[in-house]
């Protein structure tokens, strides 16, 4: 397959800063990040000054920038914690966005070489996806592989890839109960594959190491669903899981692909899962209820853009889930408001 050449100015790397000293994070990623423009968004709850090393082409957004765009007195949209990165998505005008949690550094592949996660995400996003039939040799557009015997020829050109979901070595993205029960479990298995998650199959879309085509699916990556006691560790949140299910429904409807697999990042130890377990788990229980909803929601033929799709999903959420719990009704409202914001910011 011919290599797609991307201009560096088509990419934004959006980092949500939940810790104030980003020096070691940025230095670790410098070889991969330095070519590109960065958007750093500071968690509005973070009191300390951000420390960011020089030599990067970046824009920094803080609470005061958020307050100019979103009226916090009337809006329920929150950019607190991990959701701060969504402000970066809102502000970006680039075609491709890559976002990595600030407690992750480059991992090494099975040969011991540092993985350029940015380059791999770009490759994933700029080669076709194959959601309508499973290829047993995984991504057929990777080097050294192809479609297998029996793969329908009419499906071999694939569709555009909307989302690229990477993985994590060391501390995998487990929930708190799993992490608490297996405190020493570390992911050391390097699975050398990218694959397209088939159409109509749901997945838990982790926000830790993610990239997307902003032009195709940008409005879909939104802050909507917050747990009552959402915290500053990934296993105390499900906001990305909610957003991910919306994004998969949108991609399935618009016939876009979602890839999962490479690249890996190395996720560092942080936090105590047992402590997190002491918090309330109402929110996690709520997520069980939404799975049948997302698996069965269907959008109308009139929904031809990501914004249209989100509006329809929000309406369905309000109607079908909102009745049973106000948290869903609020999520639906946030989704509707986000689309308004999205259009507003772009019309300036």
């Amino acid at each position, binding site marked *: 397959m011919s290599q797609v050449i991307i201009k560096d100015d088509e990419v934004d790397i959006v980092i949500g800063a939940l810790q104030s000293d980003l020096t070691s994070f940025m230095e670790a990623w410098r070889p991969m990040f330095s070519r590109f423009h960065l958007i750093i968004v500071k968690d509005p709850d973070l009191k300390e000054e951000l420390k960011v090393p020089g030599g990067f082409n970046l824009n920094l957004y803080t609470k005061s920038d958020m307050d100019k765009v979103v009226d916090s007195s009337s809006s329920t949209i929150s950019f607190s914690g991990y959701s701060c990165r969504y402000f970066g998505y809102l502000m970006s005008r680039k075609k491709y966005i890559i976002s990595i949690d600030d407690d992750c550094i480059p991992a090494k592949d*099975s040969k011991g070489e540092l993985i350029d996660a940015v380059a791999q995400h770009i490759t994933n996003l700029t080669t076709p996806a194959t959601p309508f*039939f*499973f*290829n*047993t*040799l*995984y991504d057929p557009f*990777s080097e*050294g*592989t*192809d*479609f*297998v*015997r*029996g*793969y*329908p*020829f*009419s*499906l071999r050109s694939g569709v555009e890839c909307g989302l690229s*979901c990477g*993985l994590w070595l060391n501390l*995998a*993205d*487990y*929930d708190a*109960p*799993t992490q608490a*029960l*297996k405190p020493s*479990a570390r*992911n*050391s*298995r*390097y*699975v*050398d*594959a990218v694959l397209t*998650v*088939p*159409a*109509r*199959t*749901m*997945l*838990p*879309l*982790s926000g830790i190491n993610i990239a997307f085509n902003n032009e195709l699916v940008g409005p879909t990556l939104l802050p909507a669903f917050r747990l009552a006691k959402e915290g500053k560790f*990934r*296993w105390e949140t*499900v906001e*990305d*899981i909610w957003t*991910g299910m919306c994004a998969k429904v949108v991609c399935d409807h618009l016939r876009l692909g979602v890839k*999962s697999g490479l690249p890996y990042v190395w996720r560092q130890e942080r936090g105590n899962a047992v402590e997190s377990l002491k918090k309330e788990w109402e929110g*996690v229980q709520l*997520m*069980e209820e939404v*799975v049948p909803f997302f*698996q069965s929601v269907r959008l109308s033929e009139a929904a031809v853009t990501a914004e249209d799709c989100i509006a329809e999903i929000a309406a369905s959420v309000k109607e079908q889930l909102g009745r049973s719990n106000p948290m869903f009704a609020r999520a639906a409202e946030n989704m509707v408001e986000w689309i308004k914001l999205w259009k507003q910011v772009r019309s300036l």
Partner: protein
Amino acid sequence: MAASRSSTPLLKDELDIVIPTIRNLDFLEMWRPFFQPYHLIIVQDGDPSKTIKVPDGFDYELYNRNDINKILGPKANCISFKDSACRCFGYMVSKKKYIFTIDDDCFVAKDPSGKEINALEQHIKNLLSPSTPFFFNTLYDPYCEGTDFVRGYPFSLREGVPTAVSHGLWLNIPDYDAPTQLVKPLERNTRYVDAVMTVPKGTLFPMCGMNLAFNRELIGPAMYFGLMGDGQPIGRYDDMWAGWCTKVICDHLGLGVKTGLPYIWHSKASNPFVNLKKEYKGIYWQEELIPFFQSVTLPKDCTTVQKCYVELSKQVKAKLGKVDDYFNKLADAMVTWIDAWDELNPSGSSGKLANGAAK
């Protein structure tokens, strides 16, 4: 919480290895450390007067075309001749719970550390642990050692469903179709992907019969490899056909299909021009077959594999008969297969078949 298994049971009295062959079985020497505990069912294709030498020390039964004709009588016409599709006769006569089938040009592969891969052991691991077809786990099979369900994976789906099929892969010569082989004759699969995963519900895949295992009690009757080879307009779609039927039925019955590890080393590249002749009808018929299988629904009262399969055969006749008369014949053969299966495997039967004893 997914539990990890520390040692895999051998299942030597519960598993048969089915091997179709037309040449010889020299390849078994390399597999001896892994295969010797098991009973082999050899299905000899082609000229029945030829003697196939089985290496010493293996416990086996062998069936040639004469045996197949004798055992099945008029129903023998559902078993292909001059095509490895004849292997499914082996599934039918087996009395075991599990089947592993492998081609005679497949050898033991090595993992990246240089260790020889016991493919059979991995298939058994795959079959004995649940599948997860309703929601994709981004860390792949959560029941494998060293991994688990990720955050966001619904707790209500973490028990999984029984695994009916384990589909293994191939290093060296990849399983490409003829056009791809012609364009890329030198491409070799050198990428060892260290994962097993469940093919999600509602998703079809190309099932290759080179390195395949399944739970015969759960899905056996769906593993009919169709009408191929001598006297048929098509070849090299036997395993594909079985795979699509099997997947549709597994989805309907709530069973899982896994793909990925184990790898075997595929040594022989078949002639792409010969393959093209066999495949070419399949290549364009496929474009009708795929929408058919993607939209098939089976009624709720199809609660057994046989009922599902017979219902499928009716739909094949109704919807694919107009694509080519071959599909009318295939639909009839599907019914013959089920009749033969039920005759040879009456419920509650025990005891081996009289014919086909080890020579």
